[in-house]
C-alpha cells in the first residue's frame, strides 16, 4: 500500500513545528521529510512518558502541547524538576549519547508529543545542519551568541571604536604613576608638576598594591589651605582605599560609579594589582555629556526649571547609551540612579517650599521605579509613609497628613515639571489614599491580601514593588520586613495573583501567533504586555511567596528561584531573556532622529498614529517583520522562556 501521506496533514504538522526553534530554520525538504516520519502520541495527565528504566533511549519527543515534568527520582538527587513546554525536545542528551535518561519525564497535563524514531533522528541530524547545531549546542548559548552579535552590530554603528560598552582596558593609555605611602608631600607635588599629571596613586611601602590616591584638587583643600607640613608623608593627605574596577569592567560601569559616588578617578586593578587609572576626563572625551556632569547638575538644581533641564539631560544621555549598545540591565540601572537623584532633589526643593511635618517620613517609589527598571518613557508612581507618635490620636494624624499632602503636592508638581507626568491612575503621594502611616499601610496591604478582588490585585502589583526613595528609609524597610513575613501565608492571594498573571500568554510564534486577532496594530507586538510583564509578574509572585525582599525583577528571580532550588542556568536564561526584551523596549523607546542604529527600523512610526496617546501606546510596540532575523529568533526564544516561567507559576500556584 504505497499511498502518499496526506499533504494537508504534513503541512499542518510542518506549520506547528515551524513555530519553534530549530524547526523555523530548517529547509522545506528536511522538515517535510521529518513530518512524514513523526507520530503524534497522547499521554494522559500523570502518565510517565520516559524513564531511566526504559533503558537506552530510542525515541525523540517534541512536546506538541501540554506540559512535561522531568524529575530526577534517584534518592541522592536534589535537582528541581525541569518544566518543559510546547516546542521543547527531550531527551536530546541521552539520545545523542545513546544512554538511558537520568530524568523521569511525565505528563503534568494532558500531553501530545511528536515522536521520532532513532533512525528518523539519525536521518534528521544528517539532513539538517540547523537541527544538528541546535541539538548539540545548549539553548542558553544561543542567547549568549546573539547578545555578542547585538553588541558588535551596535559597535559598528557608532563612529569610532570606543563605546560605553567597551572594556576599561581599552581606555588605559599608559601605566599609572605611583609613589609609596611614605613619600613626603613636597616630593609628590614636584613630581606631579614635572610630569604634568593630575594625580598619583599611592602604594604600600613594599608592595604594588594601591592604598590611596592623591589628585590636583586635593592640593588646595588638604595641603595648601590647612597649611599641612609638606615634609609629612603623602599617606596623611591622600584619599584612602580608592574605588577600583577590574579591566574587564565596561566604560559605562566606571562612569556610573563616578557619577554615583562623585569621584573623578577610578583605579583599574586585576586581582589587586594596579593596571591603570581612568579619569572622568578620559570618559568625557567619549561623549558630549558626562554622567558625572549630569549628577552634579542635578545636585546644583535650585528650582523646577533647572530640574527639568537636568532630567532632559538624563534622557538624552540614556538615549545615547542605548545607541552605544549598553546592556539593558545597566541602562535601566543608570536611568533609575539618575531619576532617583532627580526625585531626591525635587523632594528637597519641595521641602523648602512647603516643609513636611517634623516627624519621620519616607518617600516611596512604586512600579517600575520601585523595581529599578525605568525606561525612557515613564510617569510618576509614588506614595508616602509617615510615622506619628504612638500616642497620636486621629485628629493629630489627620493634621500631620494634611501637612504631608501639602508637601507632596509640591513635590509631585515639581516632578511633573521635570518631565515625569502625573500618574493617570492618581497613584501619587499627594493623593490622601496613598499618604499613610505605617499601620495604615499594613492594614491596607492586609485587606488586599485577605480579599484579593481585581482592583486589589492590580494595586498589589504596583504597590508591592515599593522602595524607599528619600527620607527615613527605615520606615519602608520595616514595612517590607512585615510584608515579607506575612505574604507567604496568604495562599489565596498568591493563587489569585498567579491566576491574574497567567491571563496574558506570550505568543508562541512570530508569524502566525504573534498578533492577536483583535489587535488594533497588526504586525506588531506589545513588548510590555507580552514580553516583560510575564517575567515581572512571575518574579513578584515568587518573591512574595519565598520571603524575598528584593524588588528588582532580576534580583527577585535570582533570590527566589534559588530558594526554590531552580538551577542557576535556568534562572540565568530567564533573566537574560527578560533583559533582552527590555533592551528591545529601550530601543523602541528611543525617539532621536538617529537612524543608523540597528533595530531602529523596527520602530513604529508613532507620530502618524491617530491615537490620543500615541507614544504610550506605541512606545512598547515593535513591528515583528522589521526585526532582523537574529533579533526575531532571540525574541522568540525569550518569549518561550516567558512561557516556561509561566508554566512554573502555574505548577506552583494551581488553586
Amino acid at each position, binding site marked *: 500500500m504505497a499511498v502518499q501521506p496526506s499533504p*494537508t496533514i504534513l503541512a499542518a504538522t510542518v506549520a506547528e513545528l515551524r513555530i519553534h526553534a530549530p524547526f523555523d530554520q530548517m529547509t522545506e525538504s528536511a522538515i517535510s521529510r521529518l513530518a512524514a516520519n513523526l507520530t503524534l*502520541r*497522547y499521554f494522559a495527565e500523570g502518565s510517565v512518558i520516559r524513564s531511566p528504566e526504559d533503558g537506552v533511549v530510542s525515541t525523540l519527543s517534541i512536546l506538541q502541547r501540554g506540559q512535561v515534568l522531568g524529575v530526577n527520582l534517584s534518592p541522592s538527587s536534589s535537582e528541581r524538576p525541569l518544566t518543559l513546554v510546547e516546542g521543547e525536545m527531550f531527551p536530546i542528551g541521552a539520545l545523542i549519547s545513546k544512554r538511558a535518561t537520568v530524568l523521569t519525564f511525565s505528563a503534568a497535563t494532558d500531553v501530545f508529543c511528536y515522536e521520532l524514531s532513532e533512525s528518523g533522528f539519525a536521518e534528521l541530524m544528517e539532513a539538517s545542519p540547523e537541527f544538528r547545531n541546535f541539538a548539540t549546542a545548549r539553548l542558553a548559548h544561543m542567547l549568549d551568541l546573539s547578545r555578542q552579535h547585538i553588541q558588535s552590530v551596535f559597535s559598528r554603528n557608532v563612529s569610532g571604536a570606543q563605546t560605553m560598552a567597551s572594556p576599561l582596558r581599552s581606555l588605559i593609555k599608559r601605566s599609572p604613576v605611583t609613589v609609596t605611602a611614605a613619600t613626603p608631600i613636597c616630593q609628590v607635588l614636584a613630581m606631579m608638576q614635572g610630569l604634568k599629571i593630575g594625580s598619583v596613586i599611592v602604594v604600600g611601602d613594599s608592595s604594588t598594591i594601591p592604598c590611596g590616591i592623591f589628585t590636583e584638587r586635593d592640593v588646595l583643600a588638604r595641603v595648601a589651605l590647612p597649611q599641612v607640613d609638606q615634609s609629612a608623608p603623602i599617606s596623611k593627605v591622600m584619599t584612602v582605599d580608592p574605588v577600583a574596577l577590574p579591566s574587564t569592567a565596561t566604560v559605562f560601569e566606571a562612569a556610573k560609579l563616578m557619577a554615583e559616588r562623585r569621584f573623578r578617578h577610578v583605579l583599574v586593578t586585576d586581582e589587586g594589582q594596579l593596571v591603570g587609572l581612568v579619569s572622568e576626563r578620559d570618559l568625557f572625551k567619549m561623549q558630549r555629556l558626562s554622567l558625572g556632569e549630569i549628577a552634579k547638575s542635578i545636585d546644583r538644581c535650585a528650582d523646577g526649571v533647572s530640574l527639568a533641564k537636568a532630567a532632559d539631560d538624563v534622557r538624552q544621555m540614556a538615549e545615547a547609551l542605548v545607541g552605544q549598545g549598553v546592556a539593558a540591565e545597566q541602562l535601566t540601572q543608570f536611568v533609575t540612579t539618575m531619576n532617583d537623584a532627580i526625585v531626591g532633589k525635587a523632594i528637597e526643593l519641595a521641602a523648602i517650599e512647603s516643609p513636611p511635618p517634623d516627624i519621620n517620613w519616607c518617600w516611596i517609589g512604586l512600579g517600575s521605579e520601585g523595581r529599578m527598571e525605568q525606561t525612557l518613557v515613564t510617569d510618576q508612581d509614588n506614595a508616602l509613609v509617615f510615622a506619628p507618635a504612638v500616642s497620636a490620636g486621629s485628629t493629630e494624624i489627620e493634621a500631620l497628613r494634611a501637612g504631608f499632602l501639602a508637601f507632596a503636592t509640591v513635590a509631585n508638581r515639581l516632578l511633573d515639571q521635570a518631565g515625569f507626568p502625573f500618574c493617570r491612575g492618581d497613584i501619587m503621594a499627594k493623593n490622601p489614599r496613598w499618604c499613610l502611616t505605617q499601620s495604615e499601610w499594613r492594614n491596607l496591604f492586609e485587606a488586599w491580601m485577605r480579599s484579593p478582588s481585581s482592583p486589589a490585585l492590580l494595586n498589589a502589583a504596583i504597590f508591592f514593588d515599593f522602595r524607599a526613595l528619600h527620607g527615613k528609609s527605615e520606615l519602608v524597610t520595616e514595612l517590607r520586613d512585615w510584608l515579607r513575613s506575612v505574604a507567604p501565608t496568604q495562599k489565596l492571594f498568591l493563587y489569585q495573583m498567579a491566576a491574574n498573571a497567567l491571563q496574558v500568554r506570550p505568543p508562541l510564534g512570530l508569524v502566525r501567533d504573534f498578533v492577536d486577532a483583535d489587535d488594533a496594530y497588526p504586525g506588531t507586538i506589545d513588548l510590555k504586555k507580552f514580553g516583560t510583564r510575564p517575567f515581572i509578574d512571575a518574579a513578584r509572585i515568587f518573591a512574595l511567596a519565598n520571603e524575598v525582599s528584593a524588588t528588582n525583577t532580576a534580583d527577585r528571580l535570582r533570590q527566589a528561584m534559588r530558594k526554590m532550588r531552580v538551577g542557576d542556568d535556568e534562572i540565568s536564561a530567564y533573566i537574560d531573556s527578560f533583559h533582552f526584551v527590555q533592551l528591545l523596549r529601550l530601543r523602541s523607546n528611543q525617539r532621536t532622529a538617529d537612524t543608523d542604529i540597528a533595530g531602529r527600523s523596527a520602530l513604529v512610526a508613532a507620530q502618524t498614529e491617530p491615537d490620543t496617546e500615541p507614544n504610550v501606546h506605541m512606545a512598547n510596540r515593535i513591528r515583528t517583520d522589521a526585526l532582523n532575523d537574529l533579533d526575531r529568533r532571540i525574541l522568540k526564544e525569550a518569549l518561550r522562556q516567558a512561557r516556561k516561567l509561566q508554566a512554573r507559576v502555574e505548577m506552583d500556584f494551581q488553586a
Partner: protein
Amino acid sequence: MAMEWLRHLFGNPVPLDDLQRSRLRAIESNIPLPSDLSGISLTQARWVAADVESSGLDVWNDQLIAIGAVVVTGTNVQLGESHEVVLKQTRISSQDNILIHRISGRDQQSGEDPVEALLTFLEFVGNSPLVGYHANFDRIMLERACKKYLGTPVEKVWLDLAALAPALVDTEHGSAKTRAVGRGHPLDWWLERYRIEVSARHNAAADALGTAQLLVILLSTAEKQGVANVEAVLECAKDYEWLRRR
C-alpha cells in the same frame, strides 16, 4: 455479464477491469468479525480516523467529493500513514458548498478516478475499524459511493466518536448515565475542550487529524475505565447510541 448490466443500471459509468475486480474481492474478504475485534487490545489496535467532504448535507442525494484519513495505532497518530484524495466529479458542487470545503471546481474536475480512489482508500483502511465524528454521515456517503462505483457498498466497521465521547466523559449535562441526551455536542466542542487545533476545518484530512487526536484521548480514557479491547470500545459507543435513541 449480468453483473455488468446490473452495475450499469445502478449508475456505474465504467465497469471494473480484472485487476480492479480482484482488488475488490481482496477488500471484501478483509472485513473483521466481532470475535476478531475482541481479541485486539487497545495498545495494539489499528484504527483509521476518517472524514469526508460532500456536495451537501443530504446524505442520500449529495455526492462524495473528498476523503481524508490518518492511521492511529495504540495512542499514536501515524502522521506519515495518512491519505487524502479528491474524487473526480461529473458535476461541480454549488458555490456555497465550495466555500465550505474549499475544493474548487477545477480541483473537483481534475480529481482521481473514483474507482481507483475508492479501492486505494479501502486498501489503506484494511481490516481496521473506521472512526468518525457523527460517523453515520461519513459511512453512508462512502457506502453510497462504493455502491455507485464498485457495485457494492463495502460495509466496514465504524466507530462514532459522537457516541463514544459522551459515553466516556462527563459533560456539563451530568453523569454519563443520567444526562439528558439530545444530539450531543458538535465536534468543535470536544476539540476545544481538549485544545485540539485543526489547521483547516472542513478539510477532510485536517478534520481526520483532529478526529484522530480526539480518538487517542478517548481510547486512553476508555482503557482507564476498564474498556480493554476494540470490540468493547465499539460496544460502548453502540450502547450509548441505543440509550440516546430511547
